[in-house]
């Protein structure tokens, strides 16, 4: 086994890794976030290499009464670095306003995401736009009601609970995050969003998928022994396909 693994490692080193960066972004804000990430990483990598070279060449320099790194250099270095930090912060805070401080649009697609050891459930409010009441006594995953949706509430009739998240492309999504048992981390790498689902609270995030396709949703906060296998699929489809899918699902639910 060790031989095979050495082989794997050699393949990794020789071919360059399969992965040298972030998975392709697919949300409205991902190009800006990626650009900031790449620029900051690039600049800081440059400074870091420079500092490493300085540190280790120091080993081999002949002694000298005064340092080669005189006061103006030191101050200059500090000013440049602080300016870099300030610039990064300014750009990043601007983005933060757009992604997290700004509220979701009122006409955004509504989804409620619930984390349970070790599943994600997605609830759509249906045509009435209101989530039905949930009651913890009614929670019965095996019986098809993992969220404990109360069937006596008129709003819950058209609620769709699915284990795949289907979203229309180009439309903003307003996600309300809940957790039933412990803290979970709702993470869609391709959409560049991550937020914890906290029991007893509703946390909110919003994003706009811009490319159709299938993306991974994973759990990013340790939640128990099955943490690693707590994942789901996000399927981004065209608006027409989404409407069709929703109608189909509603019909299927009304059937029995």
């Amino acid at each position, binding site marked *: 086994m060790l031989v095979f693994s050495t082989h794997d490692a050699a393949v990794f080193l020789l071919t360059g890794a399969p992965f040298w960066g972030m998975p392709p972004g697919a949300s409205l804000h991902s190009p800006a976030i990626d650009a900031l990430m790449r620029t900051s990483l690039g600049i800081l990598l440059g400074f870091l290499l420079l500092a490493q070279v300085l540190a280790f060449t120091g080993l081999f320099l002949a002694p000298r009464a005064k340092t080669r790194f005189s006061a103006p250099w030191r101050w200059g270095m500090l000013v440049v670095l602080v300016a870099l930090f300030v610039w990064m912060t300014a750009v990043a805070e601007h983005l933060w306003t757009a992604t997290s401080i700004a509220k979701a649009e009122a006409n955004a697609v509504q989804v409620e995401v619930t984390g349970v050891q070790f599943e994600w459930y997605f609830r759509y409010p249906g045509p009435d736009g209101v989530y039905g*009441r949930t009651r913890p006594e009614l929670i019965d995953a095996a019986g098809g009601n993992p969220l404990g949706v*109360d069937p006596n509430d008129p709003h819950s009739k058209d609620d769709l609970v699915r284990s795949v998240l289907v979203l229309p492309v180009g439309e903003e999504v307003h996600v309300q995050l809940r957790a039933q048992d412990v803290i979970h981390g709702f993470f869609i790498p391709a959409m560049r969003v991550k937020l914890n689902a906290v029991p007893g609270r509703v946390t909110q995030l919003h994003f706009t998928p811009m490319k159709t396709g299938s993306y991974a949703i994973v759990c990013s906060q340790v939640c128990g022994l099955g943490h690693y296998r707590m994942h789901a699929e996000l399927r981004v489809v065209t608006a027409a396909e989404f409407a069709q899918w929703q109608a189909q699902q509603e019909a299927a639910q009304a059937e029995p």
Partner: protein
Amino acid sequence: MPAIITRTPVDTERKDPGIGGKPPVDHRPTGGGGDGENWDKHPHGRRGPRELLGHYRLGLFFALAGDLMFFTALVLAFYVQQHTGHIDPANDYVLDWVPLVIPPILWINTAIILLSSITMEVARRQLFSEIHVMEEWFGLGRPAVKRAAPWLIATAVLGSLFLAGQLLAWSQLKAEGVYYASSPSSHFFYMITATHGLHLLLGVFALTAALLALFLAKRMEIRQIAVDCAAWYWHTMGILWIFLFGLLLFGQ
């Protein structure tokens, strides 16, 4: 390497400093009898009759600083909890905080702990009355001990009364059906009174130890330290209680 030399007084500046630098501060206030003697010129361990006392006080103050941070954390959590709610089945966010009605006996307990601080201070001062201290120092008699002991005992009794009063307050609350697990405000009421009570119980043990030290310790210095440290601890817990009581009373 400098040889070991013998010389007094201490000079902390090199004859030719060679390199700049401020001269050292040579008037740090430490112990001493107020007679202008600068004990700092003496080696450690010989800096007057209150050197050791100063050390123990300083150590105690830092320990108490940590302890107060413990209570600060509880108090901050108290405020956070006040503004925390949960989502009810109808998707409404409800605040869970139900103010707790403080049992009136706590007013009596507060009076008791204030009184105990006074008796404690009287006891402490007995050990620092100069004439008695000198008498004990020379081994002529034990006037300070004899005067301090009753006050110490009074403090310990008052402290125990306070603890009994706190237990009574708990039982009154329980009779009303308010238990530790009942509501967020009751969590904090019981948690705060229990941790403070535990500290006060330790304080009563400290008083007992100080009382033993009064009679058993051979050195006057140790007798002073035992009573003085117990007193500072006791005062801190008293002031802390006033603050916590105010919080429980008005902070709800």
